[in-house]
């Protein structure tokens, strides 16, 4: 590794966690604050090795609360900032993820999910933090969460995550898991000039004209960085376009609606799904992350046995592609939803499906991946219904 090179263009055989760190660095991440936790520590370790050689900052904070808060501070100083942890760390970060949403601070939060609740299975995997990402911090909001299923995708989606967080000024979750984070596979890092970088939406207005929370047409306000002479105020309190606290239901409505609508109005831009064998599908398996890799051979087996089954993979988990599920539910027999939890994303599928009795959950409490037979049986059950 040439330590001083930002983009390590070429073919590598690396761990998912390392690919995640490299994706962040490739897109310009120059600030990382974190606290060690299995199975995410390798991301911090890689950052501690790389950032100092690139003129960036790595800091190991005293806990995850400090980590996310330092990330927000760095973001306001103009840095592209990231933190990485697992479920227990996210639990500590939640209040300040809300601050990030309210201040509209671009940043990326990686959750390498492990078995849970509590300390759970530190070295083994799970997918049980999906609803935590969506609803964990208090209040009403929308969040963006991406679900890679390979080291290559951890690289690619970390780049995508940074770009979305800049574009929509919202913290973005990368929801991976201990399998993908610790698996070693081929990762192709493109040429520097081929990497898409969405620049920070710095204002073109003068300090006199500028209002920190006045939205543009897509409902996202332009931003500044500390020290540029704009002398802005920003707060976690409900605020007006000047950023000043206003304690009223009207201001609350205006602000909270905008924070939600800036995501909801741009679903087509944010939502990525991968569809396979869907044209004639009568049964659709909806999966994400590591589970999607068990689904593919299972679908092949079912196809060989004459079952018309397709795969619908959530690359974006939040916002959820509800409209797409509604459309599908009008033409397919039903859905099979395997996930390494006792039923989280399946609730979204049920909620959007025209008949929720067509939805078959294949739960797993974590620590292992699904036995393909359990998914196969669910496919057969729906196919015969």
């Amino acid at each position, binding site marked *: 590794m040439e330590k001083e090179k930002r983009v390590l263009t070429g073919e590598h055989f690396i761990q998912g966690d390392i690919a995640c760190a490299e994706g962040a660095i490739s897109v310009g991440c120059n600030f990382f604050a974190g606290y060690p936790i299995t199975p995410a520590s390798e991301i911090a370790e890689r950052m501690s090795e790389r950032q100092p050689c690139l003129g960036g900052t790595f800091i190991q904070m005293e806990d995850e609360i400090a980590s996310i*808060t330092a990330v*927000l501070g760095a973001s306001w100083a103009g840095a592209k900032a990231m933190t990485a942890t697992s479920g227990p760390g996210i639990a500590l970060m939640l209040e300040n993820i809300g601050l990030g949403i309210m201040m509209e601070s671009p940043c990326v939060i990686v959750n390498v999910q492990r078995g849970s609740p509590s300390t759970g299975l530190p070295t083994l995997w799970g997918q049980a933090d999906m609803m935590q990402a969506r609803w964990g911090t208090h209040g009403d909001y929308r969040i963006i969460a991406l679900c890679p299923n390979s080291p290559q995708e951890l690289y690619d989606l970390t780049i995508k995550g940074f770009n979305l967080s800049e574009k929509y000024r919202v913290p973005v979750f990368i929801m991976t898991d201990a399998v993908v984070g610790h698996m070693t596979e081929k990762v192709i890092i493109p040429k520097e000039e081929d990497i898409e970088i969405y620049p920070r939406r710095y204002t073109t207005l003068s300090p006199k004209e500028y209002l920190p929370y006045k939205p543009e047409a897509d409902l996202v306000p332009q931003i500044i960085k500390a020290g540029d002479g704009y002398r802005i105020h920003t707060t976690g309190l409900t605020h007006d376009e000047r950023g000043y*606290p206003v304690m009223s239901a009207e201001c609350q409505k205006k602000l909270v609606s905008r924070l939600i609508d800036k995501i909801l109005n741009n679903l087509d831009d944010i939502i990525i799904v991968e569809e396979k064998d869907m044209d004639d599908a009568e049964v659709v398996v909806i999966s994400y992350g590591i589970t999607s890799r068990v689904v593919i051979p299972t679908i092949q087996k079912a196809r060989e046995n004459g079952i018309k089954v397709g795969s619908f993979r959530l690359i974006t988990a939040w916002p959820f592609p509800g409209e797409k599920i509604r459309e599908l539910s009008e033409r397919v027999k039903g859905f099979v939803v395997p996930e390494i939890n006792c039923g989280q994303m399946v609730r979204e599928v049920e909620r959007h499906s025209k008949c929720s009795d067509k939805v078959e959950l294949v739960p797993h409490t974590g620590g292992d991946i699904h036995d393909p037979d359990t998914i196969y049986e669910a496919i057969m059950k729906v196919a015969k219904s």
Partner: protein
Amino acid sequence: MVENHPMEPFLRTDRIPHIWCPGCGIGTTVNAFANAIKKCGISLDKVCIVSGIGCTGRVAGYLNLDSFHTTHGRAVPFATGLKLANPELHVFVFSGDGDLFAIGGNHFIHAARRNIDIKVICVNNFIYGMTGGQLAPTTPLTAKTSTSPYGNKEQPFNLPYLAESSGAKFVARWTTYHVMQLTNAIIKALNKPGFCFIESVSPCPTVYARKNRLGTGLEIMKFFKENTRREKGVSTRDIGIDFQKEFIVGNFVDI
């Protein structure tokens, strides 16, 4: 002709009147801060202020600087991120004793240990003002609060001692009676690279004084005047504050 107030360039005048009670020491501390910045002649564009939550937490909202009103206890890590990502900034944390030393205590000692180049100003009013007068980690023994109605039984923090032993490079304690000294201490901190801590002991006439029958803001200032002294070479270990007893003020650490 009405002359502009000398502090006007420092304030978001469109946010005045502020929320603080008459006789509260927060405004006096803000005034000392603004004077210090003015005397140093540094560009206001490069000064950032970070607050947590509380009456003192509202300071960020009134200063015409890049100002960040964060969450309860988290001003110090936010300031750490700001400073590390742009070392050109002069980063001040302005918050209450509960914010900085109860919920935020761990961040304080670690920022001091790391010698992060931020300046922390704590308005110590011995109580949680904003939430209506509950026990703080600085409440003196026997003092009454709404959650220690029979008198506080817990040993309070001695803030300068805590700051020094955590590694702070400059440590001072003054009261809102000592406006000049407080201002000078802030100037010293500004000119000193590294983690600096200033405690501003302040009256909270509305909750602390009322619960302990200490009188008006003015009477508390009089108490500060008559019951504080400086002691050359004193160790921070020996300057804890007892309920309504004389206490020591000064610049204790200046490395």
